[in-house]
């Protein structure tokens, strides 16, 4: 187990270095020039050259990358071109907001998914079941920004229940978190449903029923825990989806997280911030996958044997 853990963590670190390398090369090759962007429209060639030297952009690509890697190993993500602040500081300042949003989004998704998945499994072929199966497809086909704008139109502009945008109170988080979670909830419900149907057909569930346990106890004590495994794995794997969703949701709701930080940085060609946010997201995704892999054997002893 420990060896497996070490090997997986080693692999994850390698992947992160790979992500750093690919992003670095991509940003180097793309036609947008940060020096020109910083110098402004009316700058002379001399000014642009000075800025380029100051930022170290006149060095050859391998040197630039090695310098970046050297700093990265020491936990230094460099300085923002436009905000003249350390990138770590900027990201850490924005990270809590994004984490709150993601946690609430995942909560919405999992709670809705569990509730509807269980109801659907218990009423196979019934109305809720068919509705869940249909909605799961609608959920993965709906554009997040349209749903966000519609929530704003209905619940903020028309009904006035929630603020249009911003951050700070519970009311601020409800719409963005629901937008983030509701679309995937159908898919979770689908997974819970099929896992529950499999589990409910098992012999031990029949035994539990045969010895006279109440239906509630059978479902929540004997069936559900065994149906949870795919859900746990799915949350881990879904972190990537959430990281992507966060960019759009933060943009529409004016949520001050790393998605917005990234969006501003992209428009200003602020390469250190773009690198920093990409690496942070990649770290979240890799960790999510790792956790999904490692938690599975803890919950399900059958996997441990393999």
């Amino acid at each position: 187990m420990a060896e497996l853990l070490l090997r997986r963590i080693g692999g994850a670190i390698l992947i992160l270095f790979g992500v750093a390398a690919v992003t670095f090369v991509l940003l180097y090759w793309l036609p947008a020039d940060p020096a020109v962007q910083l110098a402004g429209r009316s700058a002379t060639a001399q000014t642009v050259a000075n800025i380029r030297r100051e930022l170290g952009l006149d060095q050859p690509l391998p040197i630039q990358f090695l310098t970046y890697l050297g700093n990265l190993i020491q936990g230094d993500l460099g300085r923002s071109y436009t905000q003249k602040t350390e990138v770590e500081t900027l990201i850490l300042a924005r990270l809590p907001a994004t984490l709150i949003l993601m946690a609430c989004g995942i909560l919405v998704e999992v709670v809705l998914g569990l509730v509807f998945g269980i109801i659907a499994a218990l009423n196979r072929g019934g109305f809720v079941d068919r509705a869940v199966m249909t909605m799961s497809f609608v959920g993965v086909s709906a554009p997040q920004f349209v749903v966000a704008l519609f929530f704003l139109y209905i619940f903020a502009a028309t009904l006035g229940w929630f603020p249009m945008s911003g951050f700070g109170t519970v009311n601020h988080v409800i719409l963005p978190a629901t937008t983030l979670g509701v679309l995937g909830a159908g898919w979770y419900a689908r997974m819970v449903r099929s896992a529950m149907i499999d589990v409910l057909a098992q012999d031990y569930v029949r035994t539990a029923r045969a010895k006279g346990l109440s239906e509630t106890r059978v479902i929540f004590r004997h069936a559900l825990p065994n149906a949870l495994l795919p859900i746990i794995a799915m949350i881990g794997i879904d972190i990537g989806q959430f990281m992507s969703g966060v960019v759009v949701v933060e943009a529409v709701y004016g949520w001050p997280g790393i998605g917005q930080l990234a969006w501003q940085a992209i428009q200003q060609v602020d390469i250190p911030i773009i690198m920093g946010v990409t690496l942070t997201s990649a770290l979240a995704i890799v960790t999510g996958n790792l956790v999904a892999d490692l938690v599975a054997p803890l919950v399900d002893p059958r996997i441990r044997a393999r």
Partner: protein
Amino acid sequence: MRILREILRRPSAVFGLSIVLLVVIAALGAPLLAPFAPDEQMFDGLTLDGAPIPPDATFWLGTDTLGRDLLSRLLYGARTSLIIGLVANGTAVLIGLTVGMLAGYLRGPVGNALMRFTDLMMAFPALLLAIVLAALLRPSLWIVALVIAMVNWVQVARIVYTETRGLVERDFILAERSLGAGHLRIVALHIAPHLVPTAIVWGTLGIATTVLLEATLSFLGIGVQPPEPSWGNIIFESQSYFTAAPWLVFFPGIAILLTALSFNLVGDALRDILDPTQRGRM
């Protein structure tokens, strides 16, 4: 023929297929169907205060903030969505097939390197990568398609890799090899045909993802650029106005949703029908 018959037996797939046909008709027939030119800023297309007109008898779906007919723009927008859907997703499936098949067949150091690269791409937040690429390149229809293809091939590659690996181990490949067949013959005649169902399923399902991604990029202003209409950039252009003119978000939003939904439904039905492990279970 069998596939079509199977599809017609599923109500959700029939629904999906009809919407797909409608979108294709809208895209092909846009010049004939559109009541106005998509980029014509009409004199009577705005109210006296300069506000867009809600849906009425002349402008069935209303007008946008520049006094252009929304229905006409949506019809032409269907072209953008379909072109990007087909080109971007077609490219993604081709790249995915090539990488997955090479990695699965060759294995060894080359196969390993290819799959490690695929794993690496999986660790990228897809939308963030697409946004960075699209924003820093000059956005145009083809760049958007290319960016989406670069992000979307990964999943196909993984699936094809797993399938190819399974195929390579099978006895009929071994038999073929012992008869002296070359690599090219084995791959082209004995492996590729088995991957056709996967290609068809992902060629359909992927269009849904692509349509959504294009809409999102265009909504952020880094996808298809106005005045060329796309469902995403129609919403982008009227975003700040949406509480006063909700139809400008509603109709394009529904168009995106229905298109993605129908490709998902058809793709899902195709997966059920074509996946041999599912066959006979229904």
